[in-house]
């Protein structure tokens, strides 16, 4: 057998191109399904990881998928809003830490995420350049936002108007970039983070303008009494929060009614989580508390049904490749017909010919196996980075 292996080795080395093609084909057949499986599993894990890291999300009753996608992945579809009062209910329950989110607006194609300081601790986000949020009107941007828009601390970013024809609606606010986050390989890389109050300013619930109580400019007033002043539309609202005008910024109406798109709830323990979920199970309550992991699990189950199609495709492709390989071996055998005739005439045994062919297959299989193993080992090492690169694009 060693002689057959030696002869075959010399043969495959001499016919490099043919050998390489065969090895490549076999490696592809072996590697493709396994690599796909590896990457799909890693994708599934990463998609689930963010959901698993978010214990509970409270939102207005409606699509749970829309709620989860907006609060975890900052999708553009905005769910029905809930009020700050609901968030305070969670806070005063002492069952969980509530992290409010208001994800409605965009800035140059990236979602503006209004939240509190707790969000950064919750997600383990660290500052790579600059500093965290401190003052109204500031923003901290994800690493990918900084790369794509070429922004750094000290630059500014303007929020996009929701509707060019609704001048009375949300208006653009010029935000100061004070920090850039470290790469997290999550949806956070693609977000512009601001304080919750800043999103309310963008929504028009708060603003800054000249002081009205004691102003002498009557052209901006509709009416004035001892306790109330009514301004008219001529009054200019500030479009940027600066050190000079930050004191003038204020909010109108009852803060408890201010809108949120979701409240992430981090329960203190399992019992608190159960109790908290129980509070929102009643049919008549206008809110629901969802477990993002359950929602994403269901979503992935649907999405990865396509894996069955992929498997079928891979099977068909593999079958075709096997036939191609068989054809190559058959042609190879024909090419070696003279050699076989010669050694037959020289007096070799019948099984020697079989051994030579089997050795060729064995060597091809071993080379492919080694290559396949190498590729899969490397892939197993970098699969999480690869999936992150593809997901956070």
């Amino acid at each position: 057998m060693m002689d057959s292996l030696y002869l075959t080795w010399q043969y495959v080395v001499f016919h490099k191109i043919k050998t390489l093609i065969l090895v490549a084909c076999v490696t592809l057949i072996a590697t493709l399904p396994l690599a796909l499986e590896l990457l799909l599993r890693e994708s599934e894990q990463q998609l689930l990881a963010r959901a698993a890291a978010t214990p509970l999300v409270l939102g207005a009753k409606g699509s749970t998928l829309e709620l989860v996608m907006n609060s975890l992945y900052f999708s553009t579809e905005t769910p029905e809003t809930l009020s700050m009062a609901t968030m305070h209910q969670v806070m005063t329950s002492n069952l969980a830490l509530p992290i409010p989110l208001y994800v409605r607006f965009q800035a140059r194609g990236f979602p503006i995420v209004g939240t509190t300081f707790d969000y950064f601790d919750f997600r383990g986000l660290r500052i790579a350049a600059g500093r965290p949020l401190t003052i109204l009107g500031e923003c901290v941007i994800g690493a990918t936002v900084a790369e794509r828009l070429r922004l750094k601390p000290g630059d500014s970013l303007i929020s996009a108007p929701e509707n060019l024809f609704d001048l009375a609606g949300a208006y653009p606010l010029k935000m100061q970039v004070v920090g850039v986050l470290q790469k997290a390989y999550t949806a956070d890389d693609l977000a512009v983070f601001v304080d919750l109050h800043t999103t309310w300013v963008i929504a028009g619930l708060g603003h800054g303008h000249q002081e009205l109580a004691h102003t002498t400019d009557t052209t901006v007033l509709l009416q004035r009494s001892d306790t109330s002043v009514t301004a008219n539309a001529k009054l200019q609202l500030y479009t940027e929060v600066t050190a000079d005008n930050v004191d003038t910024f204020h909010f109108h109406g009852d803060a408890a009614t201010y809108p949120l798109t979701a409240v992430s709830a981090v329960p203190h323990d399992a019992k608190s989580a159960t109790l908290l979920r129980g509070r929102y199970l009643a049919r008549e309550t206008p809110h629901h508390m969802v477990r993002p992991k359950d929602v994403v699990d269901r979503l992935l189950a649907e999405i990865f049904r396509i894996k069955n199609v992929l498997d079928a495709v891979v099977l068909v492709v593999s079958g075709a490749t096997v036939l191609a390989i068989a054809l190559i071996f058959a042609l190879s055998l024909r090419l070696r017909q003279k050699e076989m005739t010669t050694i037959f005439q020289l007096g070799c045994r019948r099984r020697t010919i079989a051994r030579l062919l089997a050795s060729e297959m064995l060597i091809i299989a071993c080379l492919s196996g080694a290559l396949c193993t190498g590729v899969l080992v490397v892939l197993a090492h970098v699969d999480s980075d690869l999936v992150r690169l593809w997901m956070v694009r």
Partner: protein
Amino acid sequence: MIRMRALTFCYPNTDLRLHIPELTVAEAQKVAIIGPSSAGKTTLLQLIAGILTPQAGSVHVGNVHVNALSDARRRGFRITTIGFIFQDFALLDYLNVLDNILHPYRITGALRLRHDIRTRAAKLATEMGIGDKLQRRPEALSQGEKQRVAICRALLPYPKLILADEATGNLDPANKTRILELLCRTVEAHHATLVAVTHDYELFGYFDRVIDFRHFGSSVIS
């Protein structure tokens, strides 16, 4: 060395019929076989070697009744007793000269490839004038060098019988002579019997005997 009696052979679905009433070749004799194309000269060699089995008659090589052996025994007998030299050299292009010479030892269990065999192969190659080309592949050799490699391969197992089928057919006149001289000298040195099919009449002088195929009465039946 070789004895054929009342031998009859024909290929299925062809018109070629070979009939040899008697053919004898003495030991250590150098015999040239001549005849027209498609007369069955190569078929004769293959019958001697046991590659083909006659429909009737007997073939003896030495004391061995070749056509009475089983296929496996014939192969084993062939590789240990008979050396083949082909017209187109039949070297393997993916092996170097040394490996080509050692090739028979790698394709059968009947021959054991020991260290002394490698030494002998190198010595044989040196005697043939190709000792410095052992690591080269056939594509880097001249026609004459290739045939010398083929001769070395045929002679390495010390065969009792050398069958050469148009061994000089692809060589230029200068090489034909050189190679045949070399072959005959080596065959004599190894006390082997040589049966060579050839068209080269000018080389008859190197042989002890010339057998004209037409004397066997073989003919293409029309």
